[in-house]
């Protein structure tokens, strides 16, 4: 009788313990399921957003110069110079990677461009360069007037200041330090 009682007691304890552990496991799994459902919802939204913005996302790449696109880009700058009537010469071309970032997908292209031309043409050229469909950053721009026959001096100390007339030989020389982002080759 004692042994039988003990057997029933042990069986009861076992069933009670199983119910308790099953309850805990179910609770954990329900939490997990709740997180999974949220993750599922987020993934679903992300997938929809990616599908809807596929064109815009692929357009992001167009703001970077292609790995082999340096020469065509320089060609574009020179063509732009011709279009706006300014002389363009490329001083230097260098590519720099960020040493802090390993496996970086991009690098910075540094260009030094020398241009000569009239003030208005150069300003229009500068605006065109800044508005190129790339991530153009002008690190330094130096405008210098060359060949001003009168050296800008004012004649006398008259109270009335006559407007200065520019000569045809008057040109501005501009040096541009341009940085752009490009994909690594």
């Amino acid at each position, binding site marked *: *009788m004692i042994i039988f009682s003990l057997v029933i007691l042990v069986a009861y304890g076992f069933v009670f313990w199983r*119910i308790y552990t099953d309850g805990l496991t179910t609770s954990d799994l329900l939490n997990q399921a709740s997180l999974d459902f949220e993750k599922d919802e987020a993934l679903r939204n992300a997938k929809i957003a990616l599908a809807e913005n596929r064109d815009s*996302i692929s357009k992001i790449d167009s703001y970077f110069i292609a790995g082999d696109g340096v020469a065509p880009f320089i060609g574009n700058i020179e063509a732009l110079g011709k279009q706006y009537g300014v002389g363009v010469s490329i001083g230097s071309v260098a590519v720099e990677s960020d040493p802090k970032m390993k496996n970086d997908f991009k690098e910075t292209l540094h260009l030094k461009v020398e241009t000569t031309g009239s003030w208005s043409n150069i300003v229009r050229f500068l605006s065109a360069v800044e508005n190129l469909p790339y991530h153009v950053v002008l690190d330094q721009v130096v*405008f210098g007037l060359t060949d001003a026959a009168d050296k800008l001096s004012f004649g006398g100390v008259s109270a009335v200041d006559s407007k200065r007339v520019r000569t045809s030989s008057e040109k501005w020389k501009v040096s541009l330090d341009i940085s752009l982002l490009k994909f690594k080759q």
Partner: protein
Amino acid sequence: MFNLLPEVEKKKILQEYNVRRGIVFFVFLCVSLGIALVGIFPSYVLSSIKLKEVKDNVSLVQQSSLFQEAGQLNKDLSQANIKLTALQADAPSVLIGDLFSRVIEHKVVGVRLNGLMYKKGATKDSSIVSLSGVAKNRESLSNFASELKKEPLFKNISLPVSSFAKDSNAEFTLQITGSF
């Protein structure tokens, strides 16, 4: 009556009573535990079924095609994010052509410029525009500096005192700092 019995008989009877009490106790215990076991069994079955159901649901969600694509989706999103962050960094707040145009707008009659320089600063507030030129007289130069100070884009206008040394045809260099 019980007291009339000999001591040995008394002990035997008491022992017999104790055994009977024990049997009754254990019978009740067995019956009670049996009833409890039967009573708790449906709960055990229900909790097992519930556990199985939740396990099935979780594995169903985790095996969905969306979860399999999660890695690729995260990769695509993070790549787009990294590219956007790279493009946002160093984005100019004002075009240099416009910046020079604003400087020219403030030029007064008695001042002629022969050099302009823009240098991007390490921080957004430390970019510099440097101007050089010739001023007809001190008053023109002073007026030009005052006009430039009216431009909200320019934080600080620095004009060395030495620029005022000559009263006519004074060559000057002026430095503007600001967040451009």
